[in-house]
């Protein structure tokens, strides 16, 4: 069963990168995401892969691993690949479904189209990242 627009918007809202964007912009973002289902054991993304983008878990559970090490388990509302959505750099980790899992997926190319159409989204994201850079730089705030 497909997830409704409101539920998708709520899931996207959880991603810090989208915290500053307007309701209208969020609505455009909802149009861009695709819902993808993965059976248990299937890889959503592989370490070293480029440009696979952001995944937000709707239902199910994924494991994030690097080499033999498990970095995280992510359930509904949790996400992975926020920065790789932007910089398209190779995946730092594998992401694998631990049970049948549905996710919202947003690819790097989708985001570029959106930025062209709605520059205010990019400005809001720039501001959000600027705040995080400041916090990472300034030990008293970070």
């Amino acid at each position, binding site marked *: 069963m497909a997830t409704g627009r409101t539920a998708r918007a709520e899931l996207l809202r959880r991603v810090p990168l989208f915290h500053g964007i307007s309701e209208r912009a969020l609505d455009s973002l909802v149009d861009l995401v695709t819902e993808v289902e993965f059976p248990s054991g299937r890889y959503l993304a592989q370490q070293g892969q480029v440009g696979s983008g952001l995944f937000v878990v709707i239902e199910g559970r994924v494991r994030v691993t690097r080499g033999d090490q498990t970095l995280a388990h992510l359930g509904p509302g949790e996400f992975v690949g926020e*920065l*790789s959505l*932007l*910089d*398209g*750099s190779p995946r730092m980790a594998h992401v694998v479904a631990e049970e049948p899992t549905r996710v919202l997926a947003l690819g790097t190319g989708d985001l*570029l189209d959106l*930025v*062209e159409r709605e*520059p*205010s989204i*990019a*400005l809001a*994201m*720039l*501001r959000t*990242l*600027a*705040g*995080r*850079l*400041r916090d*990472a*730089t*300034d030990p008293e705030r*970070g």
Partner: protein
Amino acid sequence: MATEAPLELVDSLARLALFADLSRPQLERVAHTFDEAVFPDGQRILRQGFQGTGFYVILDGEVAIRVDGEDRARLGRGDFFGEVSILLGEPPVADVVALGPLRCLQLGGSEVERFLLDHPPVMYRMLQAQARRLRNANRWRG
């Protein structure tokens, strides 16, 4: 360092990653919108804790990003700085110091948002660069 004639400046801009997606007429407008600024070795262009004065794109030379007297990173040709404090409306969290003679493009803080909204591909490039910086910044903190 001599100031370039406008045509040479436009050619020079075309080779910077930040402006790589702009058309020739757009590059010409960039050359007119920004001012060129030259700084001697050792000059502090941004001062930690003091109000920022602008957004800078390095044309020639290198700068150090210095926090509490400690060098955190170096930026060179094509890199930019000053956007964090402008976007947040806060004083810079780092000194930016010229390492040798430095030539930059400079845009006043109040003009930056308008410029960015008019040039979405530049914003997209900045988002990519910020995502990379954020990865690196988080690495410092271990």
